[in-house]
């Protein structure tokens, strides 16, 4: 087991190194003038030449790469060409908002997706099952941006129940001291017992949260349903049933346990998907997260920022994959 984990970590690092190298090379191959970007539009040739030296762009590419890796090992991702701020500092400012929405969506997926799958399996081919399957397929196949716009139209424009976007209302932003401990507003306001802000943050996260959650909810519900149905057809379930054990007990005590492996794997992997999906959703809901940040970085070819976000996303993926593998490995029936 230890050997397996060690092996997985090493491959993870190799993958990350590959991602960094490819992104670095791509950023240099794409025609761009980082020095001109650094000094801003309409800079003079002298200013650009100065910036080139300052950023070390006058050095050969292998040297630049070596410098980049050296800085990276020190936890320094460089400075954004556009804002001139350290990338690590900017990522730290944007990541909590993204994590908050991803975790919110993840919790919804667990709370709604798993029970939905269970009931669907239990009521196989009955009305509830059809409705649930229709919902699951719909939520997986509907494009998230469409859902986002639709929810905005209904809940903001027509009903006026929920805000259009942002993390807090204008009044809260201006007239209240918003706590900043983890950067996740829901958590921070709870820690400081600031329920006014909690309420405000909560109503702001509902629409983007639901949009983000829809895909994993559908996926998890479908996965739970099919895994459960498969288990319920196993011989051991038939023998438990033959002892006269109640159907509820069969389902919850004996069957469900054996479906949790695949469900947890799907759930973990969908978390990675959610992380990327949120990039699009954030723009629509003016959610000040990583997606919003990377969208600007890409359109302005701010390559240190692009590499920074890529490294963060890749790291998340590698870690989540590792966790998914470990969950499978925890199953005593699987030998590594």
């Amino acid at each position, binding site marked *: 087991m230890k050997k397996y984990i060690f092996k997985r970590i090493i491959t993870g690092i190799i993958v990350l190194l590959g991602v960094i190298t490819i992104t670095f090379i791509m950023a240099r191959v*794409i*025609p*761009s*003038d980082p020095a*001109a*970007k650094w*000094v*801003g*539009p*309409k*800079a*003079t*040739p002298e*200013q650009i030449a*100065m910036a080139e030296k300052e950023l070390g762009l006058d050095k050969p590419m292998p040297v630049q790469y070596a410098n980049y890796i050296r800085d990276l090992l020190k936890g320094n991702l460089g400075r954004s060409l*556009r*804002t*001139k*701020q350290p990338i690590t500092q*900017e990522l730290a*400012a*944007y990541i909590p908002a993204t994590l908050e929405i991803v975790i919110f969506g993840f919790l919804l997926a667990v*709370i*709604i997706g798993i*029970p939905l799958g*269970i009931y669907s399996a239990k009521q196989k081919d009955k009305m509830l099952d059809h409705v649930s399957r229709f919902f699951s397929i719909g939520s997986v196949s509907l494009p998230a941006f469409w859902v986002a*716009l639709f929810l*905005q139209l209904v809940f*903001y*424009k027509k*009903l*006026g*129940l*929920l*805000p*259009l*976007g*942002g993390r807090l*209302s*204008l*009044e809260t*932003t*201006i*007239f209240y001291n918003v706590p900043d401990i983890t950067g996740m507003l829901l958590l921070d306001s709870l820690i400081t017992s600031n329920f006014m802000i909690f*309420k*405000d943050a909560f*109503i702001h996260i*509902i629409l983007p949260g639901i949009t983000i959650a829809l895909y994993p909810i559908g996926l998890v519900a479908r996965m739970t349903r099919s895994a459960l149905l498969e288990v319920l057809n196993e011989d051991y379930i038939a023998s438990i049933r033959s002892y006269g054990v109640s159907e*509820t007990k069969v389902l*919850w005590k004996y069957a469900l346990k054996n479906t949790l492996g695949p469900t947890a794997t799907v759930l973990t992997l969908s978390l990675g998907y959610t992380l990327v999906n949120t990039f699009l959703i954030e*723009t*629509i809901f*003016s959610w*000040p997260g990583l997606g*919003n*940040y990377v*969208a*600007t970085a890409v*359109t302005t*070819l701010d390559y240190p920022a692009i590499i920074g976000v890529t490294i963060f996303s890749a790291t998340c993926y590698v870690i989540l994959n590792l966790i998914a593998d470990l969950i499978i490995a925890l199953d005593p029936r699987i030998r590594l």
Partner: protein
Amino acid sequence: MKNKRLISLLLVIVLVVSLIAGCSGGGTTKGGGEGAKNLLFQANGNTPYINLDPSVENSNGVMVLHNTYEMLTYYNYETGKIDPMLAESWSASEDGKSWTFKIKEGVKFHDGTDLNAEAVKKSIDRTMELGLGASFIWDSVESIELIDKYEVKFNLKYPAPIDLIASAAYAAFIISPDAAEKDSDWFNQGNGAGTGPYKIQKAVAGEEVVLEKFDDYWRPWKENQYTSIIMKKVPESSARRQLLEKEEAQISVNFSTTDIEAMKKSDKVQIVQRPLYDTVVGCLNTEKYPLDNVDFRRALSYAFPYEETVNNVLEGQGVQSHGLIPGGLWGHSEDLMQYNFDLDKAKEYLDKSGVKTDGLTIEMTISSGYDEYRNFAQLFQINLKKLGINLEIREMSWDAQWEKAKNPNPKDRQDIFLFIWWPDYPSPISWFEGLVRSEDKIFFNLSYIKNTDLDAKMHEASMLTVTDRDKAEQIMIDMQKEIIDEAYFIHMYDKSATYGISKDLKGFTTNPAYPTVVRYFDLYK
């Protein structure tokens, strides 16, 4: 039992969610409480700032900085004159190489210190020393000398219009002496000290800025002015429109044409067109066949769909250019000749040029991500097709577009480069020095013009800008005549900005010399 518990848990969650959503819905969509009375919300498509250092910012951030800092002078685009701001009066020596400014007394910085000549010197010195952003506007300055507490003298290397330069939208802000000692990081944490009517209360990089009234501002405050301002990034055009329609936001800008049409029908929003100094030109590659032929260039100029672009593509968000200099800026003349769309004339010039069009393909590069550029380029393509010329439209990132334009081999460069130009300070000389002046190493002269006669006139006009502005203006108009006749550019259009503002908002205006800036002090309800 367990599943019952699960159901109850779910029910409770649903109940709590709907309760919270239900009872607070009204509160968030309507401005609540006394404090919100004089609150103004500007929903912005882009980030409200990139850098809050007034010496460095060369982008959107001036929309924040022009409300928190001030300059020595202010360019009044309606009169074409320079108004005093922090300077009370000024004068130049006869040779235009030394300028003296008398500084206003009784003005306070946000940190409580008084404005004086030393603060002015320190601010401009700091901008020049940092050498970032638009600091190059001060290139002519040799030294800044303190005459007395409220008088400062600029000694120049060569004559330059310091009164105009001091009114620039970028890099001309006056900072408190204490703040001038700080670095950019300090400013970007939301700190600062200017003399403007508002102070920064909060700044979140890339997202939002909150401004609050500066009580000791040197001009008196009135009751109905806005005391709290929030500028927030709302990337989606439709979202900005909805905020205006619901009266949550009071000002927003840059909408899709669909949203503009929708807002015209709203009784809560008014659409306001404001002029800009941004001009859109097609730079014609004069070093490459067949565009090295002046008659061929004229043919192209007659084939461009000016009217259709302004009316149908831009939906009125612009006007056809008269030469290089946009309307509202000195140096602009309505008497200059305009090429209009006329395929017969285009054909005539094409024949005159002797260029064979069999299978002739020319390439136009445009910056990617702009629907309007793509749309008028396609209309142009259709027109050229009728002349037997294939227009290949290449959408690329600005960097890729510029890199191609700087290729040492003229044949590997584009034929037409779509370029947007705006001045660094309110002077027409910027267009000539940027787009027309001969360059040893290619930079922004992307028509690759090498015209010594124009270079000489440009130099003369530049010098006269200081001593005899009327004469300078005449020379610039004459230069444009030659530029138009030579058809170095397709003078497409002068841009304008479409604002959506609340119908209750009064005093709204913008000044093209200060792009993206709304001076909130002028607004009231």
